[in-house]
């Protein structure tokens, strides 16, 4: 019996973030703020130190939690993200989410801003349409598509017609800015 208990404890210890269920939203102050990140490399004047990273705890809130990511996967279809970015994130009306290229930044805060504020060349603003917690769940799922989450958190299966290998088997795509020839 002893080894089993030990093993169980070990699993619980390593997987507690992954399995945690929160029944209350994080207070607003605990959430990362979009102003902490920038999408352009250019900064007028002397180059300042890079902006401070948001507290890891808040960033991890959704990203280290398997339930949040699987909820994000459900919401990705539910809010019709899949209609534009394709069921597997390969893109269509909207750009791919599966690849390394990011037009408006790959950090969770960037993606949060993209969903809530919209972007000028077609991304709608979902401000006031999606509860904040669900936006963060979507952000986490979107990042899982290009392998930016831990393997044990990213979904391993789909309930629908598979159009590409699972998120958990996705190799990490090192994010880089998309070179956009059009529009200006």
């Amino acid at each position, binding site marked *: 019996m002893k080894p089993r208990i030990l093993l169980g404890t070990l699993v619980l210890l390593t997987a507690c973030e992954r399995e945690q269920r929160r029944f209350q939203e994080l207070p607003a102050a605990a959430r990362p703020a979009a102003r902490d990140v920038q999408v352009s490399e250019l900064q007028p004047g002397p180059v300042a130190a890079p902006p401070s990273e948001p507290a890891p705890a808040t960033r991890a809130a959704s990203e280290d939690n398997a339930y949040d990511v699987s909820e994000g996967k459900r919401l990705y279809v539910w809010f019709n993200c899949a209609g534009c970015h394709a069921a597997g994130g390969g893109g269509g*009306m909207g750009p791919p989410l599966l690849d390394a290229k990011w037009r408006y930044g790959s950090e969770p805060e960037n993606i949060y801003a993209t969903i809530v504020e919209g972007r000028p060349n077609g991304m*709608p603003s979902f401000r006031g349409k999606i509860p904040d917690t669900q936006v963060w769940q979507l952000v986490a799922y979107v990042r899982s598509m290009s392998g930016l989450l831990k393997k044990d958190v990213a979904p391993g299966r789909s309930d629908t017609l598979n159009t590409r290998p699972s998120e958990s088997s996705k190799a990490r795509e090192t994010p880089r800015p998309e070179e956009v020839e059009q529009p200006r």
Partner: protein
Amino acid sequence: MSYRSRLPPLVLAGLFLLTPGCKKEGGAHPSSAQASSNLPAGTTKPDASKLAEDDGQWLTASKDAANTRYSRLKDIHAGNVKDLKLAWTWSTGLVRGHEAAPLVVGGTMYVVTPYPNRLVALDLTKEGAPVKWTYEPAPSPSAQGVACCDVVNRGAAYADGRLFYNTLDAHTVAVDAQTGKELWKTKLGDINKGETMTMAPLVVRDRVIVGNSGGEMGVRGWAAGLDTKTGAIAWRAMSTGPDADVLIGPHFKPFYASDQGKDLGVRTWPPDQWKIGGGSVWGWVSYDAALDLVFYGTGNPGPWNPDQRPGDNKWTCGIFARRPSTGEAVWFYQWSPHDLYDHDGINESIVADLTVDGKPRQVLIHPGRTGYVYVLDRATGQVLSATPFGHITTSTGVDLKTGRLQPVPGMETGFDKTIRGICPAAPGSKDWSPSAFNPETGMLYIPGNNLCEDAQGYEANYIAGTPYVGMNTKMYAGPGGNRGEFIGWDVAAGKKVFGIPEKFPVWSGVVVTAGDVAFYGTMDGWFKAVHARTGQELWKFKVGSGIIGQPITFRGPDGKQYVSVLSGVGGWAGAIVSGELDPRDDNIALGFGGAMKDLPQNTTRGGMLYTFALP
């Protein structure tokens, strides 16, 4: 000495065009020099239908009101087309799909670009056809986010010194053909409901006929007739809803019983589903002056998942005949009631006179997405024949007694089931890409697809301005492995005369000439001339980017015959290249991209106009 060679042809054309106007205006006789330089001028108001008879020009995207894309020019013919050479090119500077037909009016060519929908006038009277002016309608950039299948535009229409076309953010504009000045701009739709406009208008007398796109976004489809002078909306006919909205009145006489009855646009839907039921009007409009009827098709019902909309879903996936002045409906026929596969009914319906079973008949010829070439009586909407031209596993034919497409049991898509081997796939055996018809030979030239798909339905949520589809699809090549075919079709006999397999779907338009040559382009960038009777390849030229545009032919101010086409891959079929989609996902571009994974290795993007002539 030939008649043509005694006078410069354009002068001759000008005199011919001026003649009716001169009579009206009491015998003014402008000099022939004026005539040649001022063809589209405001002082001469040649009748649009007369102009359409002039093969030297190309005045509306589909060439003429009948939508033939047939030109009587034959200086370039099957015997000498092998010598065709590049005359000049012009870059649009844009990288998305270029689906438009250029227009030629007098000594000017007009090109409508994809978003941002610039209208550019090129001066054909000068060497190298320099730009005369550019008109910029400045559509909302956000419109790009609700354009289902790339930010394309299919072209303009010319009448009475004006050019008319649609912008992606759902406006119709009229532009002075001489100066490039905007004459009016009318807002027709709302991008926040997912409405865009991509189709090429048709002008009938004092009406510009237009329609909306957005069948994948849960829009409610409509066609509208605008006043050519003011841009005022004279009528708007919805594709779903109560008869009053559909402009169905006492003169509506559909041929088949299933289209007869009150408010079918409401009663063939679950409650209120018709309000977001699709039936967009994004394809071709044709017109028959003798019957005074315009004909246009309606798009797929929304969402694609058919289990969310039990019923026949009128008036989607069908064809309306209407009065151009009032929009009043005269008849309707439904290609695919309760559409299961996104088989929009918007393909061209070509006005032609044919001998069917020994009798002369006034018909419409419609190579449809369902995979059949339909021949309809254009006065009544009766189906005279529906002959398969593609590989079909989804239906067994059309019952000529009831007019109804006969679906194959077990192939119905819907909730929580995966149906495999659906042929034709969603884009059909032929999509919007227009065919050409030679009325002299009765031959139809079909730019075809050979695609099948697997499809799984799921619950689509309606959120205005976002996709409303509810169907996961993966497409792949049909039998034979060639994803496209260019087909020569004898309409009266209902027989394929020749078929040219193409690696990719043939997504370009076609032009056929009295010189027995048919021109089309391929998605891997070949512009081809084939013998119109045999399909034998006579000439080809490799352009910079895959062709999804509509080729045209015209007589230049120098009297020579030219052939022009826009290259610039994209559209639904080419979105994988124009939108730089990720080929690791089979579902890209609503499943189409899965069948096009090797396109990026075969072509790159970039819009360029090519014009060819004999040396």
